């Protein structure tokens, strides 16, 4: 899929709300860290997902701007994977610094495991299986609606 601006944003929100939530529900009990009630850990992990979505809208604006320098106005598969590095780092430092105080600090190992697994699953789905139920999605620049 080669995205348009609205397509990028919609795809991100849609995949985080579906694939992201499912993967989070499956993975949270397996994450390392001090024993705390599962309910609280779930809420926290879902809030992190929400932060990825909200910050993501800004990131997508930046990616869209950078894409303009590409003649083909495309976004290679590898970019979709590697952007996990700046996005992960920014969120990690925001959490560490306490700037997002409604999310409890999580141990680094747990954060990175959760973040990376969700990211890779979303990326994999966006690069193929997404086209199975949504046959119009790739021709509309990633718009779901």
């Amino acid at each position, binding site marked *: 899929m080669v995205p*348009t601006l609205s397509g990028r944003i919609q795809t991100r929100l849609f995949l985080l709300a579906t694939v992201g939530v499912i993967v989070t529900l499956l993975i949270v009990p397996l994450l390392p860290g001090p024993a705390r009630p599962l309910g609280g850990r779930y809420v926290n992990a879902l809030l992190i997902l929400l932060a990825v979505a909200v910050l993501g809208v800004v990131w997508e604006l930046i990616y869209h701007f950078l894409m303009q320098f590409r003649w*083909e106005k495309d976004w290679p598969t*590898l970019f979709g994977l590697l952007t996990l590095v700046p996005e992960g780092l920014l969120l990690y430092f925001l959490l560490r610094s306490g700037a997002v105080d409604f999310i409890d600090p999580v141990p680094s190992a747990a954060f990175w495991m959760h973040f990376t697994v969700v990211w890779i699953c979303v990326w994999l789905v966006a690069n193929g299986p997404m086209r199975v139920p949504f046959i119009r999605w790739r021709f509309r*620049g*990633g718009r779901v609606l």
Partner: protein
Amino acid sequence: MYPREAQLAPPNTPAPAGDLTPELLGAAEWSDQMVAAAGIPMYDIPFLTVGGGMGSFVTLDYLRIYGVPTSQMKVVSNIDTPWQTYEFLTRCSQIPRSERIRSDSASRPDNIWGFPSYGLQETWKDKTPAYLWQLLTEPLLNDYWTPRAGTVFESLEREAKRIGYWDMLVKGQVRMVRRRVGGGYFTVVTPPEGAAPTKRIIFRSRFVHLAVGYPGLKFLPDLQEFRTKHNDYQHVVNAYEPHEQVYEFLKTRPGTVVIRGGGIVASRVLQRLFDDRKKYGLQTQIVHIFRTFVSGSHGPHIWARRKGGDGWAYQGFNYPKSVWGGQLKAQMRKLEGAERAAKYKEMGGTNTPYRRHWQEQMRAGRSGGYYHPVQGTVDRVERSKDGRLVSYVRSGDGIVREPVSDYIIDCTGLEADISEHRIFADLLQNSGAHRNPVGRLEVERHFEVKGTASGDGALYASGSATLGGYFPGVDTFLGLQVAAQEIADDLARRGFVRKMGPLRSTSQWFKWAFNTPL
């Protein structure tokens, strides 16, 4: 065209029953009675697609998957398999089944979802994980991964069987499509000799789809002139026609070849010449004439600059990648008239992919002194005293070169005007169709031919003839699928078939995966 037809059946001698009559030829719209009076057998079929190449195939594939039974659709064609013309053209232009084509891994004309992509399929089949690495890193660290021609043909055959393609095929040449009084269309077909008792048969349909491919090939004027003047079709050839004699000759003695054109076909022909040179230890000299010699990145501003060099403009596919679904597709969809033509111009132009292997071969050729790329326009071609070919090439800097060669290969791939095709000529003249800003057939965003509506029926077109419309990538597998989807969705709006949502799409995908016949 019409006067000649009229001569065959002048008004005073009655036409043989079952052929077109002057009355039919002269009327823009036909009634059922007029057709009956001409004695031409008539068959009803709700949906008819004309051409039977890749465009017809992907359209039927979509509609079969959306749920239309084979009894409701027919395809009229002069070829036996949907890939026949494509395979002929690719083979001539040096892409045998084992070579890789231009379009990417997810352009799968046998699979409307594009998943699993050809890349995953070939990885699995060849047990070659290196393909996955290439897919992951294309086009940054690697060339685009593209499938073998053979992979495409084999998977098309599987899908054609699955959807019952040959149950829908009618062999014949379509002569024209005319509007029907009361709605829908008549399609006039000339069946093969002996296949029908009358010279023509007619299909009466509510919907007709035209996918007849290229209206015709055009030669560079100076080359055409030479061919006609000297009646020599052996030494001046088009890359889209069989020209093995060139390569065979070069195996027997050293020779020089002039190549014209800067597109992918020129790249392919070069590769063949370089490959043969190495394989058989040949001495072939190559003079490559670019009319537009691209020496570096080019474009009006930093947001619109394409890579290039050594004569070529480099681009993965024939249009920038986002025309098939991204930003450029969305932008073009909104443009009309002159603005649209300007956008086409901005992103168009002959180009070829930057492939590492080709780059190496050309580098070796330049430094080895046997590959000579030059800029120039050719004024004329003449025969030398010893029977070889002299090209008179004028460069932008005023220098005139006169390379002498044994062969000239025209790789420009010029296409003829749409009116060279009888069906389009007839549509433009009789059925209200008109041209788009770049001179081809104007179609709606859903690929209905503008101006040709007839009652509750619709006439659609896809492929090269519709270039210049709201969607630029028409003449590609993926573009033909984009068109097919628009058409299928339009037919759903008109109640001909049920629109396909996520659940049905998923269940249909499983049927594809398990090769369940529809």
